[in-house]
Structures are given as C-alpha cells and as structure tokens.
C-alpha cells in the first residue's frame, strides 16, 4: 500500500495539528477563517493549555501550528511557547506581527524549535490593507524588519491568494528575499468570514491557471501547505500531499478546546469532541465517531470517473461544505469547471451551511473593493443563496520546518509499498 493510502486511514497521532489559542484579535480580516475578534470567556486556561502540551508530547506530536485569532495577544503566549518547546513540542506560530517588537524578535532568535509566520495578503499596503485592515501592512513589515535585525533565521511570509494579489506573486517573492524569509502561499477558503467575501476574492479560473503555472515555475522554495492540490489536475502534480487530510493527519484544536477535523471546518458537522472531555485529545483523535467516519475509504462520488481524480481527490471538503456543494462531488474551484457548474446548478432549496461559531466584533464588516478582475457573480446563480467560500486543508499534514524547500516535509526513504 502506498503511503498516501495509509494516510487515508488515519495516523496514530496527527502530523499537522493546528491549535488556535484565542479568538481575540487586534485585526478583523475580511476573510478570517475562524471569524475571530473577541476573546471567548471559555478559552482554555494556562494550566489547561499546558496539559494539552503534555498530552501532545505523550502522543509524539512533534510540533504544532499555533494560530488564532492573534495568539500573541494572550498574556501567557510566551509562557506557553516556552513550555511547549521545553516539552519537545516544537511551535510554528502565525501572527500579524503586532507584538513582535525588537525585544521579542531577539528572544525568538535565541529560541530553538520555533518558527514564525507573518501574515501578509498584499505585496503593497493598498492591496493588503483592504483585506487585513488599515495599518496591517506596516505592522507586518515592521515585524519582519525586527526579526531580520535580530537575526531570526528564515521566518515565513504567509499569503492567502486572492483575486487581488495573484498578480503580485513575483513581488511577494521579492519581499521574502528582502527579509531573508520564505514565502508561503495558501488557498482562500470560504470558512468563517471568508464565506462573506469568497465570491469577490477567490481567484478567477484564469488566475488559478496563472497561480499553478507560477508554482510549477517558481515553487521549489515556496511553501503551500499542500493547499492547492486541487490544481494538480492541470497536469503535473504539485509537491506535497494531494489528499484531504482532515481527521486523518490534520485537525484543529480551537481556543475553547473543541476539536475539529481541520482548521477550515469550524462547524458542528466537523466537531469531533473537546479536549476537556474524559480521555482528552487522544480519545477524540483516536476514537471519535467523526474521525472514524472520515477515515473510511472514499468513493469519489460524482468525481469517480474523472481522469484527474487521483491527483485532486475531489478537492477540499470544507470548500465544498461551505459553498453548499455535496462532499462527494467536485471542489467549487475544480479546474475542469465542474465546480462552477455545480454552484450554478444549486437551487434555493439547499441552505448553504454557516458556522455558529463567530467571535467577530460588533459593527459593520468592511466591504472589499474589487479592484481587479471581473464583477462579482454573486446572486447570478439562478437566484440561489450567496456562494460561500470553500477550502479545507491549508494546513499541510507534513508542514515544513525551517530549511525545507516545501511546506510538506514528507520524505519516504523506505523500501516497500
């Protein structure tokens, strides 16, 4: 059996675990996959977080991807960072840079087993700040400057690809080179607030092709979280795991301890359990009904006869779910156009699922000006419900660590099949 087939049946522990420490965030990005903003009063305490780290160590989860919200606004963030690293659970954390002053940058440069990922969704302030909010570009750049001055080796610059920034790929690569950073690009997903803007922001079909071609030509040292595996149907498979890892090799622990199948699937339907319940995270990972179900063989459904099924595996579960498409059909961004057809064919009888988990701060949500590309198609799909975003697995189950050419660190040096 090929390794990727073993992955379908799940591993004894996750390879890629995302742990969102808080729903609190200083920003209000329009595409936030966790609809973050306000802290949840039920968030795990410092001691509960340490107990989770202890369990991850026992389960030999070698590193976690820490996010949020903005994880560094938790007062105990640095304490938890040290605790995790001291207990052989390496940390990669995503931040908008708000707390990365020169002193913290120096501290991070002295710390082993920590990787820092700065979010930037435009190569210019104009594009970035439309999505991430006023001043967020300057904050990110300042953090990158601080890390560079402190001698922190190869931070990541993490970009969610949108209709507005696909044309900036070369500029992102140049920015990464300037700061000695590694570029990481991931797919826009219709999760969280991303559902509200997916129609306007998800790359056009021509841009998907542009992105794929760019990755093939320049992607050797670019991380992707294996999130573009649906584009492999264009031809040459992209490096990484071409498989939805949700509940198999990937999962999410949210700030209140809820365990979801993947970071892009914060919805009751993908809620497997809670780390506070008896047996803790290990019990959820190993025995929850949901994860057991996700580890059953998949038939491919409507995609089964497609010649590209082996390379795209039907795409992203969350993308389908949050756009109201059947999970055993094509991805909404299927490169053969079947997703668009499926979206257009939806009638109003099917409600598009929305997450009940929303920590957005009150007030009107900013609209994203469409500056590039075609007018939004929202509402044109036969009067059906507004499309919601999709996306599921941005988190590579094989997340790359510093020095790796790919986000996925899959290496199979073994004999056998």
């Amino acid at each position, binding site marked *: 059996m090929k390794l990727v087939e073993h992955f379908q049946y799940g*591993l004894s522990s996750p390879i890629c675990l995302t742990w969102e420490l808080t729903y609190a965030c200083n920003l209000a990005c329009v595409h936030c996959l966790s609809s973050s903003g306000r802290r949840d009063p039920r968030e795990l305490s410092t001691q509960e977080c340490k107990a989770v780290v202890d369990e991850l160590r026992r389960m030999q989860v070698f590193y976690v991807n820490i996010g949020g919200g903005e994880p560094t606004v938790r007062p105990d963030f640095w304490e938890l960072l040290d605790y995790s690293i001291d207990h*052989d659970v390496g940390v990669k954390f995503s931040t908008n840079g708000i707390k990365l002053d020169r002193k913290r940058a120096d501290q991070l440069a002295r710390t082993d087993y920590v990787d820092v990922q700065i979010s930037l969704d435009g190569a210019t302030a104009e594009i970035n700040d439309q999505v991430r909010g006023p001043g967020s570009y300057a904050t990110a750049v300042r953090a990158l400057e601080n890390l560079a001055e402190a001698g922190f080796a190869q931070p990541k610059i993490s970009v969610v690809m949108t209709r507005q920034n696909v044309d900036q790929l070369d500029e992102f690569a140049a920015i990464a080179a300037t700061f000695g950073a590694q570029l990481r690009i991931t797919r826009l997903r219709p999760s969280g607030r991303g559902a509200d803007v997916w129609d306007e922001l998800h790359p056009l079909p021509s841009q998907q092709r542009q992105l794929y071609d760019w990755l093939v030509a320049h992607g050797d040292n670019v991380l992707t979280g294996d999130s573009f595996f649906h584009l492999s149907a264009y031809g040459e498979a992209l490096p990484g795991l071409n498989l939805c890892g949700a509940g198999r090799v990937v999962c999410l622990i949210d700030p209140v301890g809820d365990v979801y199948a993947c970071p892009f699937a914060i919805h009751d339907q993908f809620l497997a359990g809670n780390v506070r319940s008896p047996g803790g995270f290990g019990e959820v990972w190993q025995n929850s009904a949901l994860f057991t179900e996700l580890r059953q063989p998949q038939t491919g459904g409507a995609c089964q006869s497609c010649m590209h099924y082996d390379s795209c595996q039907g795409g992203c579960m969350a993308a389908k779910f949050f756009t109201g498409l059947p999970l055993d059909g094509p991805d909404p961004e299927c490169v053969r156009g079947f997703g668009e057809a499926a979206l257009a064919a939806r009638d109003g009888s099917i409600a598009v699922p929305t997450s009940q988990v929303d920590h957005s701060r009150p007030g009107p949500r900013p609209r994203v000006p469409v500056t590039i590309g075609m007018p939004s198609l929202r509402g044109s799909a036969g009067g059906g419900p507004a499309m919601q975003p999709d996306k599921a697995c941005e988190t590579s189950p094989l997340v790359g660590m510093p020095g790796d*050419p*790919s986000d996925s660190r899959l*290496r199979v040096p073994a*004999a*056998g099949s």
Partner: protein
Amino acid sequence: MSTSAAPGPGGAALDPAALDPAAFDPAAFDPAAPFRCSPKVAVRPESFGALVYHFGTRRLSFLKTPELVDVVSGLEHHPSVHAAIEAAGVEQSQRPAYLRALAGLAANGTIEERS
C-alpha cells in the same frame, strides 16, 4: 497521474524508487560500518511502519515498512548496517532497496555512524 507517482513534499516522490539520487552521495554511506539512530530523532510507530522526526533538522521522514523500523531501531545492537538488515529478516531481493533507503536516512541525519 497515480498516487504512487505523486511527489511528496519538496518534490520527493512517495515512491521510494524515486528518492532523489542527487540528494546524497552513496559512496559516503558505508553499510559495513556500525550505525545508530540519531539521539535527536524520535520514532513514532504507525500502522505502515513509523514516522520519524529529527529535532535538529525538524525533518519528518517515514519508514514505510515494519522491517525498516526494525532495522533502524536495531542498528545500535549490530556491528554493521548489513548485520542489522540480516537480523530484521529482510529478504535478499529487497536489500538493495533497503540500503538505498538507509543511505537516504544517513544523508538526512536520521541515522549516523557510531564509533
């Protein structure tokens, strides 16, 4: 494209036969020498074999068969790589593939020569 040919992260293929030969120098790997699993490596048992993580390089590797796990775990108890392969009961026909895999593991620091 079949999954068997799907490249692994970093472009390395899942198929062991496609392990990038340029990634290491086979001449630098001497299977007659005594080896051990690096003390910086943790081995996590899985149904297919094991997942290994190197805390120094932060690299994940996969040992795709239980026999390879036995070989890697047994290295320190044997005077040579060959002896560890023998002790793990690897079939003769499979040994060249195992040596290639072990050379790759030596090149990425998962296993190392011991004095």
